[in-house]
């Protein structure tokens, strides 16, 4: 059972209150019509799936019902930190190789 800190509620809550929305920071193409099949398939289906730190989106389904981001290690399941949409993450990408 993960204990997840909701940055909106500012509380550690149990995993069952949340739902998982996959990899974070995927930008929807501004002009989908102009994309090649490769680029569109890449946007829809191809994910980083790292063995190590993963930036992902969570939804506090039975709490504040708001989305937020988390940086979580997919091997140890440690949640390094969570942050609101629009916030700058505290950990920069350079430090995320550890544990991979």
């Amino acid at each position, binding site marked *: 059972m993960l204990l997840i800190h909701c940055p909106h509620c500012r509380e550690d809550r149990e995993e069952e209150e949340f739902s*998982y929305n996959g990899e974070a920071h995927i930008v929807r193409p501004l002009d989908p019509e102009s994309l090649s099949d490769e680029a569109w398939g890449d946007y*829809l289906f191809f994910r980083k799936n*790292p063995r190590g730190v993963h930036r992902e989106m969570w939804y506090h389904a039975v709490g504040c019902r708001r989305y937020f981001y988390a940086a979580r290690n997919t091997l140890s399941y440690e949640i390094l930190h969570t942050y609101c949409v629009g916030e700058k993450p505290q950990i920069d990408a350079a430090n995320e190789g550890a544990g991979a």
Partner: protein
Amino acid sequence: MKKYSGFSLFSNALSYHENWQKIWRSPKPKREYDVIVVGGGGHGLATAYYLAKVHGITNVAVVEKGYLGGGNTARNTTIIRSNYLWDEAAQLYELALKLWEGLSQELNYNVMFSQRGVLNLGHNLQDMRDIERRVNANRLNGIDGEVVTPARIKEIAPLINISPDCRYPIIGASWQPRGGTARHDAVAWGYARGADALGVDMIQQTEVTGIRRENGTVVGVETTEGFIGARKVACVTAGNSGVVAAMAGLRLPVESRPLQALVSEPVKPCLDTVVMSNAVHGYVSQSDKGDLVIGAGVDGYNGYGQRGSFHVIEHTLQAICELFPAFSRVRMNRQWGGVVDTCPDACPIISKTSVGGLYFNCGWGTGGFKATPGSGYVFADTVANDRPHPLAAPFDVDRFNTGALIDEHGAAGVAH
């Protein structure tokens, strides 16, 4: 390889079973192989076996970071069925089921394949519509199946609760009599022994750390024991497929999730079939040893930890206790998790790649065990001939760019 037989059992009994031969060698890796199979699970070993047996390619190594059959092959719930909705998937799983039917003889190794039948329960009107559609599709594809009533379900599995008063009453099921279970470890060991006898090298405790390429073509793999050359590299690494693909600069549309299972203490025979329920999310069978083998769902998030969340198990056991009230007092013995590589359309990837001589067989997600023989068979053919086997062609990784997905989510009686 000495053949196993009643006579060999008798003669070895006379020497207190101390003189059985090792069932595979543990050779030092050669400098170069025709094919290196990365991953020594059931699918990888089956691939190596059929490469040697069907295609005569015997200069093959299986490189495994742990021990043979120690990953998901040892962690699944051993259920076998082929009642998939779509033609492409149905044909692939049916090929596997047909191979299962002769596998113990083929390998001279008892894989304990038991065609005890598989029930997929329906709990509401939409479940039953889906079940009827799937059973009809199966029969058109020559796959056995029938829609059964609660009374018939009760005959097949007498301990089941068909009361209309429960939270999710059972109102019918699909029944595939040719489905069943097999001994998961024996499948890995049988294929390893068969492949070894044909000259395939089993390289255990050796982790592949890189895939060396020259001019866009594979030349070998870097391992913890040094470089091993190869003309072709076939990757069958389940949950770690994305990690291996990244070694060759490739991406795969798979996400790795922990999937859990658990077994109870051994009890007397009480369930001689496999019962699965998609809607309440649980599946159960009884092993020959007597334990109830129970499959839970995948965790909601990506993970490589080979363990899962407790509430997922709790959820599954609620379902099992409702289906089988008699099981509510059975104690659970062990619980574990495996890392499965799930694909967006719940179908596998059996594919060439943009790197010459590099092939992937992955994305089997939560249901790969049942396909082990068929998967190895078509993948060996794909690798040997450098073109997709006709049954593997629809499972090319390109389908995620062309849009020709094979959407088996929910449609296949998949329990998760």
